[in-house]
């Protein structure tokens, strides 16, 4: 396996780690984000560390009607496309202003689903490829502290599950990644429990392995599979009174 890997939303800390994992494994890398100029240092890093062939692509996850042209104009249709697009938003703001909530939903669900839909169709036509969606454990159950973000991620998780089902017999594999806490900008100023908090590099390695082994759904760290199973199974009358 050594075809190009496209990373959407390439400016995040997690995306940087994912790009390194795939570059180290010998893949050419396409980095896509808004204002690609700010990715020049990331591209230099991949070239310097691994001698990777890197291309930078202008991409706006929120401009849904640009996504078809974006996919049609890719220099090469990638072997693996990884969607790391997402934004936590501010829950209080999402509560007060439905417009702000709609933005969060667009950034975490509509945008990612739209671009992956176009990529899925192109890969289906080719009869090969892997799509990776980075969703979140927050989508496993809505909680007061971040349910707008969580509901968008829940939608995205369901979308990925359906896409996997649809493409299973078409040679296209879909991986759902459910990170728990990851030490990136999203967690700045929030003190999270060490055993539940992954370094971005761990997520990069886990995604590379999941793609190579054709895993369906992975949690990073794996302990989150257990944590979320517990959280999902708390009866609603109890759950609604908790503050998790």
């Amino acid at each position, binding site marked *: 396996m050594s075809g190009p890997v496209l990373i959407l939303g390439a400016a995040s*800390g997690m995306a940087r780690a994912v790009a390194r994992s795939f570059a180290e494994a010998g893949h050419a890398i396409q980095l896509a984000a808004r204002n690609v100029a700010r990715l020049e*240092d990331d591209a*230099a890093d991949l070239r*310097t560390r691994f001698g990777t062939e890197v291309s930078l692509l202008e991409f706006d996850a929120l401009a849904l009607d640009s996504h078809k042209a974006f996919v049609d104009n890719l220099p090469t249709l990638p072997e693996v496309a990884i969607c790391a697009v997402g934004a936590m938003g501010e829950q209080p703001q999402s509560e007060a202003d439905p417009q702000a909530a709609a933005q969060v939903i667009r950034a975490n669900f509509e945008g990612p689903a739209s671009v992956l839909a176009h990529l899925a169709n192109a890969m289906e036509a080719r009869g090969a490829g892997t799509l990776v969606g980075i969703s979140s454990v927050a989508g496993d159950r809505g909680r007061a502290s971040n349910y707008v973000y969580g509901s968008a991620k829940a939608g995205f998780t369901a979308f990925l599950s359906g896409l996997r089902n649809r493409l299973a017999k078409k040679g296209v594999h879909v991986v759902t990644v459910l990170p728990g806490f990851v030490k990136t*900008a999203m967690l*700045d100023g929030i003190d999270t429990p060490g055993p539940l908090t992954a370094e971005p590099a761990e997520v990069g390695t886990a995604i590379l392995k999941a793609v190579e082994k054709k895993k369906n759904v992975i949690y990073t760290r794996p302990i989150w599979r257990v944590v979320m199973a517990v959280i999902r199974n708390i009866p609603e009358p109890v759950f609604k009174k908790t503050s998790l």
Partner: protein
Amino acid sequence: MTRISGWGRFPVAECKVTSARSEADVARAIAKAPLIARGNGRAYGDAAMNTGQTLDMTAMDRMLSFEDGVLVAEAGVLLADIIHTFLPSGWFPMVTPGTKYVSLGGAIAADVHGKNHHLDGSFRACVDWVDVMGPDGNVTRAAKGDDLFDWTVGGMGLTGVILRAQIRLRPVETMYIVQDTRALTSLEETLAAFEETLDAPYSVAWIDCSDGPHHGHSLLHLGRHATVSDLPEDTAPLDVTHKRKLPVPFGAPPFLFRGLWLRGINGIYWRRNAKRAGEKLVDWDSYFYPLDALLNWNRFYGRKGFVQFQCALPQESSAEGLAELMTEIAASQTGSVLSVLKRFGPQSGPFSFPMPGYTLALDFPASERSLELMSRLDTITLAHGGRFYLAKDARMPEAVAKADPRAEAFAAMRKQAGLSDRFTSLQSERLGL
């Protein structure tokens, strides 16, 4: 707020830690509140801690270019990354401390030294320039010869935030070191052996400071980079493979550090190695970073942590000063597992720690008794014209640090340049830097 500490796990403080991922993040942080930049947390004490704002630089870890051994990289890159990336094509750091998990920014800020200081100088020797963000958010490229360069290399992050730097690596034919070990039985013999082997590229000695029958026994490890002709025929010269790390999950019980037990360990270690003295081929990781193989070895000392003592003594008073220090340590019966002795060469930069002479480094469990002992060691060091290594310090009083006249000059420079109220650490406050 996050509870953080240096590598010695003493002291511990609640600090507001934020992470920088770009130059713009650093500028915002500087505008917001006084801060200290923090790399991979390998300084032993409180040098990279600020309760109001500690700026984690480890996410700024991009390598920007590499050509013919000249690397430009961001401050958060670790020496381990550099070795992992470039050793397979025959490049190794020009100067490396005893851990590869130090960040580039940290190595520059502490102007770290290695086993080759007597020939090659401190880390400064391989640095061409450093980009430093000042109190106004402006970035200055400080090159060798500039005042800002002199104060920044060894300046403990107190001249601004180190963003990136250009360093030169050393070409090597193989990833192996030819190590020559000599077993010696006294301090005098050890110093004489150091003086006779000044042309050895690497040298360092382990010396017994306990009050047992082996007091003063040492193992002098000399080393040079192996060439292809030094290797057995079937050995790939640059096949960098990762050794498995053994985590140290919890603290050792305090009885481990009682004198009697330590005397035992040190004696056994010396006898075992004395039998195997002579030349052998050692891989880079085992030679330069034996402790890195034990991930989190700092937990050996348990929850209370440990404190390091490292001083440098001038050549002319080294023999006498070291003998006095070792006698005092032996008498205290709280001697450390690791006592490292090393010959220093000429001082590399105006604010560098090393001076021509010898350096002694030891660690002690963090306790009242150790702190009292260390204050007696301070007095002996100063009486012999010595100085102290800020990257190891967690407890010096201001007066001891200020005995080095350069400390006052550094503080005055900081004040005049408007740095004192923007870049501060618990250490800089404690020492009045």
